[in-house]
């Protein structure tokens, strides 16, 4: 089986992580922020899978299952928060919550 070399896999994971982080920082829509967090999680998961393939160990795959379960829980809590957020502020703009100014 032709395998992709580990470097490319890690590079892809890094790019995805950076994209996700950029999304979290520059997006104002809270749904998109949540989606960007999902992308970052998946980037981390991909790094685990690549590492597992590189060293022929199952641990990375197991780790990815954990990440999936955690991501599902995070999304359910996150969406509940988003619902409360919209009820409170009537908008999806994350900057609307910036009331606590120092």
């Amino acid at each position, binding site marked *: 089986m032709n395998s992709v070399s580990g470097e490319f896999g890690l590079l892809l994971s890094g790019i995805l992580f950076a994209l996700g*982080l950029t999304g*979290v*920082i*520059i*997006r*104002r829509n809270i749904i998109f*922020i949540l989606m960007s967090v999902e992308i970052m999680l998946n980037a981390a998961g991909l790094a685990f899978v690549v590492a597992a393939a590189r060293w022929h160990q199952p641990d990375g795959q197991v780790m990815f299952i954990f990440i999936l379960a955690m991501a599902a829980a995070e999304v359910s809590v996150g969406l509940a928060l988003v619902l409360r957020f919209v009820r409170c502020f009537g908008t999806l703009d*994350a*900057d609307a*919550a*910036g*009331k*606590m*100014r*120092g």
Partner: protein
Amino acid sequence: MLELLWLIPALPLAGFVSLVIAGRRLPRQGVAFIGAGSVGVSAVLAMLISISFIGSPPAGRAFSQTLWTWMEVAGLKAGISFVLDPLSLIMILVITFVGFLIHLYSVEYMREDEGYGRFFSYMNLFVGSMLTLVLADNLLLLYLGWEGVGLCSYLLIGFWYKDPENGRAGNKAFIVTRVGDVALAAGIFLLYTHFRTLQIQELMQQVLLQWKTGSVLATAAALLFLGGAIGKSAQVPLQTWLPDAMAGPTPVSALIHAATMVTAGVYLIARTNVLFSLSPLAMSVVAVVGAATLLLAGCSALVQRDIKRVLAYSTISQIGYMFLALGVGAWSAAIFHFMVHAFFKALLFLGAGVVIAGLGHERDIFRMGGLRRRLPYVFWTFLAGAASLSSIPLVTAGFYSKEFILSQVWISPSGGAALWLAGLTGAFLTSLYTFRMVFLVFYGEEKTKVSGNKSLSLTVPLFVLALLSITGGFFETPRTLGGLSFFTDFMRTALPLLHPLNSASSELPLQMIASLVSLAGVWSAYLLFLRHRTFSEGVASSGAGNLLHRFWSAGWGFDWLYDRVIVRPFLWIARVNKDDFIDLVYGGTAWYSEQAHRFLSFTQSGNLRWYAAMLAFGAVVFIALVVAV
């Protein structure tokens, strides 16, 4: 019985603690019960103890009781321990008994006041501290009581703290007496560094053994103690605080600023009489301070308009008599006058309190008048106190105590004609200003409407004190009048006696002169302030008279002088010193932390995305550090 000695100061202190804890929640009767009751039980105990002390005197005529060791560090040992000897016995009797009567009076007098519980807690703390002061067997415990009474004096002068003037008067009293207290502390340090002990009895024995008469150290220690006594007892040149201290409630003036605390200086000098008798210089300073004070304050009392200020200057003047007696070595005469003065001056203040309250807080004697008919019970008791203060011959206690002082001044080797003449002039001034007050307040036509409060707790103290002011002097009469000497015999073990050199018959002319001078003062007051009012007003409004009037009224300009010489330069230095480089260090620290605060509070923007970016940035920096190192 004597073992119960510790209860005497402990009861008022317990009253203070319980009033502080529960004073706000208790009803007024409860506060009055605890406040006056604790001092009352102390007074009863003091009486029982004195009966047992006189009935079966302990060995050496002194009983000491150690409760516990207060501190013991590197050879410095001080205990919470009391000593009861004739001197402290007289002091605790006067303090608890007069204190109880004044507490009883305050139950009614302060009834309408919102700070009822606070008032009684301070008063109880005062009585407890004063008893600690006079019972202390070492100088450190004495100093604790000394500062305790100073604190209570400050708190009670500024009792009506909502008026800033009262707070200012409290501050003045505290700061001026502090000048004396520093001298006293230095005196205690001096004695301790030389003798390595603070026990007063032991110290006095050591002083007698190691220091010669007139030695520099003895003089220095005695003068430092005198400094403390001058501050506390409001003598020249630290007398300026007492007239202003009249800002406090009247019972406070009666208890603290007439009967007890201000005489603490007299007690201190009498207690350390061995030290003072080693230094002729210090003794003459004491006598001269006393004589000067009694004349200055007597003149000032003559021109005051405020009834309480008249009494305040009179107190300063009478304590001047006590200092005069101490200065010539007549220790027991000073303590005798202290006791009698406590009776009649407390009485005069309490009587003045009823008058002031009855006239709706009017304190100007020129707006009073004709109160003889309206307040007969105040008139008669006040008259008894005034007669005692003016030492009306034969019938008053004040006559016997002042006569005792004057005759001792005359016969003492360190006394003499000059000091005796000063005392005599003071006696004339005393009866003149006292009866000026009596005639202006109680005679003449009525000027302000008066309402008299006749409740028992006001009148009983007045009558008891009036009785004591009249009869309190019969324990000690001159040789020409029977020569009773119960008081001096009782005090002999604590205070050495002066022995008269000449015979009894040569005292008679002196006594006649002194009596005539007192009566002449009353007669002049009658002429000047009742019969020929226009004449005295004419003198007061003439050019020189007016000037003298203003000068005396302002207390010989001491306040003005201190303001120019001490207060203003001090404030100027403080203002100039505010921006020096040491302050720049602290100011700079404050400035930098404020800037840092501004910067950090800028990061707390509340912006979610900003936080996320900072989180990521921080993580990157941290990982970079871990990887690089």
